[in-house]
């Protein structure tokens, strides 16, 4: 980590001075070198300091606060002075039906999103690639990227309105075919399809950008020789495009699995109701209700710690695998 500090980035004049200094005083101590370095480069540290302080205050200090997961937290005593109680909260959690249900729902909902949500952007990118009319392609892309930029509150508002029992368009259309009006958002069996469908509708278009970029990187000569060989577009898609973007697909899949626990709970908070908790409640919404709304900070903090540790292990594993696979790190 130390190494020669007076290397790149400094002017040649400074480098000459530094080199000279080294010749004249070969036994400069590490401390001396550090002081000299700071004297020359203090401005860099002034630039870095605000970010480091911010990270310490807003992200690293809460990590210290995670100890409430092992404490009987009381607001009056504060985090540091509350008594330690070991793994009691974790024992409570794993005996708590609501938590276990939330855990199960989290896994179930991420699986559904993975199975139905993952192939969609790939399919879209392949289809966009086959469009020859540039105007049509641009217009379609402009429209399908749009929902990504719309807030979850608005998307939820649209969903609530569209699925409303009295006025919603969904029930109106069902009415045409003679079906009775259904209050979808109070039906546990409808929550997951609506939630997963909404996230696909919102994100699939935007996520296709990554694959479009990968397709753009495929060498045109491959297609040219395929055309000479009389290949159809369908064959070229299967034999050239898809194999060429396979590394991207695999990396995206690994990332996706790494982020499994990151179910977008904001949207769930906006869409669920007590009537649908049994299928809709995930770990993060459980933490929100128990902790922020219910004031059981220590128990909710324990659930959060469990979530964070599992997520960390998943992400690190995903990163290691993809590093090995692609020889490039994700970050």
């Amino acid at each position: 980590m130390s190494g020669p500090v007076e290397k790149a980035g400094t002017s040649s004049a400074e480098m000459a001075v530094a080199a000279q200094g080294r010749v004249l005083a070969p036994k400069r101590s590490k401390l001396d070198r550090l002081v000299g370095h700071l004297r020359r480069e203090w401005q860099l540290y002034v630039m870095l300091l605000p970010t480091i302080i911010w990270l310490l205050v807003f992200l690293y200090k809460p990590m210290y606060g995670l100890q409430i997961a092992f404490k009987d937290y009381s607001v009056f005593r504060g985090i540091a002075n509350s008594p330690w109680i070991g793994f009691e909260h974790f024992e409570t959690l794993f005996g708590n039906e609501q938590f276990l249900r939330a855990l199960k729902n989290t896994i179930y909902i991420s699986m559904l999103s993975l199975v139905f949500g993952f192939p969609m952007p790939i399919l879209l990118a392949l289809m966009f690639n086959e469009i020859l009319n540039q105007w049509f392609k641009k217009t379609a892309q402009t429209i399908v990227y749009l929902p990504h930029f719309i807030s979850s509150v608005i998307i939820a508002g649209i969903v609530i309105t569209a699925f409303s029992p009295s006025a919603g368009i969904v029930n109106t259309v069902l009415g045409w075919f003679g079906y009775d009006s259904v209050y979808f958002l109070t039906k546990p069996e409808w929550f997951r399809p609506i939630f997963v469908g909404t996230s696909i509708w919102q994100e699939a278009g935007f996520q296709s950008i990554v694959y479009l970029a990968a397709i753009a990187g495929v060498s045109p000569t491959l297609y040219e020789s395929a055309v000479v060989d009389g290949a159809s577009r369908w064959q070229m898609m299967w034999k050239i495009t898809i194999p060429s973007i396979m590394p991207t697909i695999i990396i995206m899949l690994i990332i996706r699995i790494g982020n499994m626990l990151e179910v977008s709970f904001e949207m769930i908070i906006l869409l669920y109701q007590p009537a649908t908790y049994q299928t809709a409640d995930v770990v993060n919404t459980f933490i929100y209700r128990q902790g922020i709304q219910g004031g059981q900070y220590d128990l909710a903090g324990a659930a959060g710690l469990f979530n964070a540790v599992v997520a960390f292990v998943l992400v690190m594993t995903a990163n290691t695998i993809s590093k090995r696979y692609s020889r490039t790190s994700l970050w």
Partner: protein
Amino acid sequence: MTNMNLYSRGDKMFVILNMVLIALFTLSTLYPFIYIASLSMSTGFEARAGNVILTPVGFTLEAYKQVLSEPQFWNSYKNTFIYTIGGTLMSLAFIIPGAYALSRPQLYGRRFWNLMVAFTMWFHAGMIPFFLNMRDLGLLDSYFGIIIGFAVNGFNIILLRNFFEGIPQSFEEAARMDGANEFQVLWKVYLPLSKPAIATVALFCVVSRWNGFFWAMVLLQDDSKIPLQVYLRKVIADLSDDEEFATSLLNAAYSFETVSAAIIVCSIIPILLIYPFLQKYFSKGILLGGVKE
């Protein structure tokens, strides 16, 4: 590749089918927005009766009059602007110098500092400790809390740092010869060369601020400080729960559906206005960001 005549009949079928499917997907993306816009301009009666399908029925701007005459709407609109502009400027003030310092090879402990940034992307203490920390810092219910509490984001720092690292050292040599210090090099050499990357980061901040809802809901109790998204959520939750209000409006020119549709339209408009920039820079951003450590 571009010559249509080269294609067989099978290819033509394939191309046409593909266009139809894309067109359907595009329309299904567009339709909910058209539906909401039409709803917002229909009478409450028609909206309640489920008669709005594609275009406004019984055209009226009554819902907009209701929304725009509500002081709390304007107040939360103003708050959203404060959080968006203040928050974005705050983020840039941290991120630009921070990313620049992290991109310099001569920085002592560079690996350590970079790891410190990257680690926050992999591990997060979570909702409860973050909330308790904000409370202990006295940042509940404050404009400043919202603006400072979400200023730095590891992904944005790394994105900008990667961009700075890609700028060849030769660009700064002339400035160095003139005796420029680090601040001057950043300001006069790096910033002008990094406009697209900075625009990308700024737009990431703008969108996440404009759309930010969860933490604003959790951290702000005082209605005078809530942003538009929290207000919208309150309106939808309050109105749909309030049966009395709903029935009292049965014959009115507006209903809770048309009112919430009108608020939705009002809060989408600013995003639509900057959408051309968003589209241009965001796709660059995601491709720049998640590439290397």
